[in-house]
């Protein structure tokens, strides 16, 4: 646990001093969401109808923006091979980096999401479920994304590659995340959607650190 906190503390310090990642992610999220009213028109009912899907798709894309950097800078400056050689299990190191990614990406998106919901005329009935669904879904995005981020280490045009690798794996989160909000807006039970999202999170938590750590070991060979 101390090692996990050490990684988290160091990476958070780096994220805060290197600056703009979180701001860029939230700005991208806001801009992308804002584009939809221009594309589909300002009709309030239409925007309310598509709001949950738009917010989730924008959140997925925004979360992917900073994925490339989860391991890349450590890989380039030699830190990653030293982390691989540290007495701490590499899976714990990966978990620390995933936690940092969520704190600098997922959490700001959750804060910004209700504002976008207001802009898209979503009923306030869906706000609570939107936040809960994002609290469950965004850590899953970071966990799955870490696998993609580790797989692209050393590859050229890694940003494009990580999108191709990770986006298909994000589809279940998108379906059940948007579905939960839709169900809440229609007055239907949301428990099943949230439970499935919870199951996906637990599965990701159990598998992603091992998969990403294995990919990191391959990359530093």
């Amino acid at each position, binding site marked *: 646990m101390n090692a996990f906190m050490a*990684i988290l503390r160091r990476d958070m310090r780096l994220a805060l001093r290197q600056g703009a990642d979180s701001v860029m992610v939230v700005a991208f999220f806001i801009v992308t969401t804002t584009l939809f009213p221009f594309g589909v028109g300002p009709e309030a009912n239409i925007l309310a109808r598509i709001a949950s899907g738009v917010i989730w798709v924008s959140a997925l894309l925004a979360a992917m923006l900073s994925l490339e950097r989860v391991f890349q800078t450590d890989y380039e*400056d030699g830190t990653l091979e*030293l982390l691989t050689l540290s007495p701490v299990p590499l899976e714990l190191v990966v978990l620390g980096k995933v936690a940092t990614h969520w704190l600098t990406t997922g959490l700001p998106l959750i804060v910004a999401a209700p504002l976008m919901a207001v802009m898209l005329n979503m009923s306030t009935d869906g706000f609570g479920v939107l936040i809960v669904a994002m609290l469950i879904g965004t850590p899953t995005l970071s966990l799955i994304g870490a696998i993609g981020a580790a797989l692209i280490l050393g590859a050229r045009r890694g940003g494009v590659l990580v999108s191709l690798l990770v986006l298909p794996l994000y589809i279940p989160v998108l379906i059940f995340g948007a579905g939960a909000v839709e169900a809440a807006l229609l007055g239907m039970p949301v428990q099943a959607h949230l439970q499935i999202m919870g199951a996906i999170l637990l599965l990701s938590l159990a598998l992603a650190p091992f998969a990403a750590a294995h990919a990191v070991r391959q990359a530093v060979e």
Partner: protein
Amino acid sequence: MTVFTGSDLTCRRGERMVFARLAFTAGPGDAIMLRGRNGAGKSSLLRVMAGLLAPLHGQIFWQGEDIADDMAAHRARLQYLGHQDAVKPVLTVWDNLRLWAELRGIRDVDSEIDRALDALGILHLANTTGRFLSSGQKRRTALARILIGPAQLWLLDEPTVGLDRESSAGLAGLIEKFRGDGGTVIYSTHIDLDITGPKLLDLDEFAIPMMEWLAGAPDDVVPEEGPQAIETPDKEGVSA
């Protein structure tokens, strides 16, 4: 007493056979200097010894136990210095080292880091951020990392890169002290380090052309007696 040994080590990088049937032995207090032309496999061998790179063939043993059987124990006993310094430009020298002290479970992090910085003569740079360091200062910061926490094995890949003559002499002193405490050091360097009686391991003698390897006749082209390639010269005989 032999502690760290390797036998029948063969390493391939991409399409190239780097070395084949390489063997080494090292005991407490020993230093092995790796030499060979560029691309002979010095860095690859150090990475194989560290467990970063799996050999195509062969095994490495620590006190008779295959290191592959317990990599966690092997990682805990070694300190590795690679080509890169792993110094973050936005963190201070002290903060850069803090992570490694915490990962090694050091209780008194402050004094351990201060001791390491003092040994490398960069205690005055503790609060300087990485981007303001010269390449030599970054290298000394990286070297300070290997002094943090107990270790039995140092694997140093070109540790003198970027160091001035005085700093190189200081590094040699640290290596000698580590050896005096029973540590084992294996290093590659292109400049003369004032180290007493290191063994030489010439990797050129273990080179094997890929085509000959593919032709399936490695026995004809690699040395039959790998360990005999290790020689122990006088200190004056060790040079780049």
